[in-house]
């Protein structure tokens, strides 16, 4: 069974204090790892897709990286508006089920001014 574990569950940073969120996964046949941001009362907002180990994607203060066992979401000099829950999801191959996303429980990030 595919498993996705995110850590830490919650992270509190001061504005400008860089850090990383972790997403470790155990899957058979990775067909994509996805990062989403979710604000309270809203649906998840797509951030990145990573497909192969060594791949990196960047967007503003966020950079996502991927290895064979985990992904990191690096946040550089965060601002209070980066506060949100960050969700990691994997899509795996096999049969006709390579459309389904398996999500972790998320990391709640709070950035204090």
């Amino acid at each position, binding site marked *: 069974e595919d498993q*996705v574990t995110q850590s830490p569950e919650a992270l509190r940073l001061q504005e400008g204090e860089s850090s990383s969120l972790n997403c470790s996964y155990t899957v058979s046949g990775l*067909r994509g790892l*996805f990062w*989403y941001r979710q604000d309270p*009362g*809203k*649906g*998840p*907002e*797509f951030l990145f*897709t990573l497909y192969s180990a060594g791949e990196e994607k960047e967007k503003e203060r966020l950079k996502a990286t991927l290895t064979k066992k985990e992904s990191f979401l690096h946040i550089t000099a965060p601002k209070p508006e980066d506060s949100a829950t960050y*969700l990691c*999801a994997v*899509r795996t191959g096999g049969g*006709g*089920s*390579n*459309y*389904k*996303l*398996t*999500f*972790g*429980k*998320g990391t709640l990030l709070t950035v204090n001014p």
Partner: protein
Amino acid sequence: GAGVSQSPSNKVTEKGKDVELRCDPISGHTALYWYRQSLGQGLEFLIYFQGNSAPDKSGLPSDRFSAERTGGSVSTLTIQRTQQEDSAVYLCASSLVGGVTEAFFGQGTRLTVV
């Protein structure tokens, strides 16, 4: 439309009543998904549509749950005889092509069964 639209945003219903949740996907997206998000839990897959067909309904929790999609567009998730454990946020997502492109989510419907 510009994004995935879900209605209603909030729904409070009495235990035992039926509810219908609606999802209007991004125009042109052939794949549509329903997920459920309960407090403290990750997003749980419910059902996947490719066009009007649902090749995978394996995530539906019980036979009280059903969904349909018409015209390759709007989808309705129906929960019959609601129970308190059905209380959750129901999220709909669509993607241009199932299993290939990224999925975009709506804002969700918060269902409360009292």
